[in-house]
């Protein structure tokens, strides 16, 4: 394991990106950060800029309008970073599969920009905060 990855895992700061979600996943992400679930015990903290982030929490299917913005946010995130696709839409477009505004699921879009990107999936509609904690902790343990 490279020393960069080792330090990435110690306390993950996350940046929350909504690329076209219905807001349901976002509500659950905000739930996750409340004292009830208290993810700061794992060192997970929400930050206000992708430049400070170790991980991106991407919710929602990537719309054509959001595509260049997501790529820009990904470019600004220091590497190595982990991209978490949160929810059914982000994992595989979900019910928006044939929508006219859809650019693709998060993994496809990010892989086009950076083929070596680390992507983790938390499916669900919306995923429970417990599922997100489990997903984040599991993803960090296999890095």
């Amino acid at each position, binding site marked *: 394991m490279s020393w960069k990855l080792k330090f990435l895992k110690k306390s993950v700061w996350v940046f929350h990106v909504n690329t076209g979600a219905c807001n349901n996943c976002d509500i659950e992400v905000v739930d996750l950060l409340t004292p009830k679930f208290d993810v700061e015990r794992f060192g997970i903290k929400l930050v206000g800029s992708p430049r400070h982030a170790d991980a991106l929490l991407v919710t929602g299917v990537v719309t054509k309008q959001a595509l260049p913005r997501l790529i820009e946010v990904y470019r600004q995130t220091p590497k190595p970073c982990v991209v978490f696709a949160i929810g059914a839409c982000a994992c595989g477009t979900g019910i928006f599969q044939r929508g006219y*505004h859809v650019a693709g699921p998060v993994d496809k879009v990010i892989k086009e920009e950076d083929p070596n990107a680390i992507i983790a999936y938390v499916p669900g509609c919306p995923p429970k905060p417990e599922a997100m904690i489990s997903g984040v902790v599991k993803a960090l343990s296999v890095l």
Partner: protein
Amino acid sequence: MDIHELNAKLESLKDKLISIDKTTDKRIYLTCESANSFDLCRFLYEDTDCRFVIATVIDSDNYFEILYHFAYDQLGLVITVKSLIRDKDKPSTESIATFLPAAEWIEREMHDVAGIEFKNHPDMRRLILADDWPDGVYPLRKEFKK
């Protein structure tokens, strides 16, 4: 104003309407040609105490339908003006946003997704489609294929 007064008022509009349909106690549909929709909406908004809720557009087989939904809260009624635009190639109608600013954005949205031209609209910029969406392609029309 009770239901009888409202009915009398609606009866007085009969020459502008194709039909008045009362599907339930709470729902009235006023079907009209698109040329009369402006006057009808203006009447509902200014001469009765109706409140504008939303407008919707449907791409039907032979015409576009624009449905202006008005709520009459004292009686719990929803009155819908169903305006038929028969020109399918260049659909256009009078904008009601000139006297009803709340309709401005929904008309912009209908223009985006169905290509309805709203005459005299104060600000007909793109609202919901992506910035690089091609002009003249309307995603919620029936002929649209991804």
